């Protein structure tokens, strides 16, 4: 595998995991515009655990995932008090505070960042990505996944049908925090350093766009969204600025053509029906 190709695959893997972290909350009907904050927690968690506490690579990554989940769990309670636009902006504020704290802390490297002492290869990221994809597909097929869909589609009705909305939403935030934290830890170990400038507001916006444009109805959405928007700019091979300009144009066009996201539940059902004649009758 050439260096360029393995680099693209690693970034794709990290972005896909990141997108699934945001997807899990979005699938339960909560927009999280604080992705960069959760990813920064994972990245800095892994960095500090390995540099200061001498944890091994996999122990640090696992611990960073748990930390991400724990913070997602804790922040869910205040954030779930808000609704709609207020919630989107509360998550945004959370990310700004996290990044601001890192920026002001000498212990966390401030604006200089931290340099890792260990590295992982692309192969590890591929396995982690496959694991996360399988896990989220499995999750969406369990009763928990069904409850998340119900809360996403109609909160009052889900409540009437006996779904514990609050528990589902808190669980979704915790899971989302853990998966996003994992992507941050992988990022830190793959690139060998963490710098706070990377975790800016635009990153939160991008990852939410991957998810919304991929589609929040099925677990295919983030995979397609993150894949599409990581690979298309690579394929276009233009200057960095032009990539983002085209990204913007694609977003506007995509919302006009497929406002529910690229992959919708209907589309998945239709493709299934075509692939196996039996499913059509069911």
């Amino acid at each position, binding site marked *: 595998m050439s260096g360029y190709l393995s680099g693209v695959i690693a970034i794709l893997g990290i972005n896909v995991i990141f997108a699934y972290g945001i997807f899990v909350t979005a699938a339960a*009907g909560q*927009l999280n515009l604080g992705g960069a904050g959760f990813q920064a927690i994972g990245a800095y968690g892994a960095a500090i655990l390995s540099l200061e506490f001498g944890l091994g690579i996999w122990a640090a990554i696992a611990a960073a995932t748990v930390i991400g989940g724990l913070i997602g769990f804790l922040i869910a309670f*205040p954030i779930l*008090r*808000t*609704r*709609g*636009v*207020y*919630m*989107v*902006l*509360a998550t*945004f*504020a*959370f990310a*700004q*505070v996290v*990044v*601001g*704290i890192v*920026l*002001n802390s000498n212990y966390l490297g401030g*604006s200089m960042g931290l340099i890792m002492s260990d590295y992982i290869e692309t192969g590890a990221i591929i396995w982690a990505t496959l694991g996360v994809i399988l896990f989220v597909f499995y999750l969406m097929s369990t009763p928990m996944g069904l409850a998340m869909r119900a809360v996403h589609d109609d*909160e009052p009705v889900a409540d009437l049908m006996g779904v514990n909305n609050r528990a589902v939403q808190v669980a979704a935030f915790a899971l989302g925090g853990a998966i996003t934290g994992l992507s941050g830890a992988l990022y830190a170990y793959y690139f060998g350093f963490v710098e706070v400038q990377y975790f*800016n*507001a*635009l990153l939160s*916006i991008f990852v939410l*766009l991957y998810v*919304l*444009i991929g589609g929040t109805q099925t677990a295919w959405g983030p995979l397609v969204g993150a894949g599409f928007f990581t690979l298309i700019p690579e394929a276009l091979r233009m*200057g960095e*600025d*032009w990539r*983002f*300009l085209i*990204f*913007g*144009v*694609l*977003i*506007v066009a995509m*919302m*006009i053509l497929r*406002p*529910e996201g690229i992959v919708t539940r209907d589309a998945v059902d239709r493709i299934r029906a075509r692939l196996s004649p039996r499913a059509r009758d069911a």
Partner: protein
Amino acid sequence: MLIVQQVLNGLMLGGIYVAVAVAFTLTIGILNFLNFTIPTLFMLAGMIGWSVSFYGLPFGMSEPLGWIPSLAIGILCAIVASLIVERFTYRYFKAKHGDATEHAIPLVSSLGFLLIFEYMILIAHGSDPRGFHTPFGDLNWRVAGLVISIPQVVGLIVSLAIVAGLSVLLARSKLGRALRATAEKPDTAVLMGVEVNRIVPIVFIMTGLLCGLAGALFAVNYGEVSPFMGEQVGTKAIAGMVLGGLGSVWGAVAGGLIVGLTETFSIYFFGATSAQVTIWGLLLVILLIRPKGLFGHNAIGKGKF
């Protein structure tokens, strides 16, 4: 005295946030649309104003212009950009789906436009901050040991005057009544004879005007513009709007001034990079205590995404 000076500086800075926060709160209050292009409209006015004053009009149509016509052109561009956003986000989804119930859709489109405008400017002018020179760049007024920058005072007054004019317009005029009717229930407003399709662009023109004006004031007051000024200033205006409560014009004024004061005090006491933590931390705490902001209307901005 130093404290009083900080209060003054905070209020001046807050004046800029106020104009942008009011633009946010208008689109949310009337259209239930979180318009993320607003920070870039603010940036467009400043950067286009700078480019006209430095290079002149595009394609060699003129020599570099003076600062007043340059900023006027910048504001005009912000208004035009705002109307383009209206055409492809709000109007389109209204026409296609009858009702913009999926609020995330125009939100996502507006994020797309944010990228388009920001990177157009970056491609055209690079990422360096640019100096913007006006004849009264450091025209100060010294009273009792305080330094008061006159352009900043004028800016604050202009900003507050426009907001006051706007709230009178909303409360008293026929247009204001139509806007409030649209805010309450668009469909009923149509049945009552309000031409909603002609009203909505007016909201976007106001948005462009407010952001453009704030961008121009920023350029004059601080003598510098950059492609990132939208991110740096515009996002803090969001914090101001949410603090004040969505849909409340005077809430946005209060919120904008509070954010300005918080920022200057935070920088004064804890250093230059601390403002990000204090401003957004304050917002999180306020949302924790009052999930609808300080003066927010109960029904606004709580719709499901």
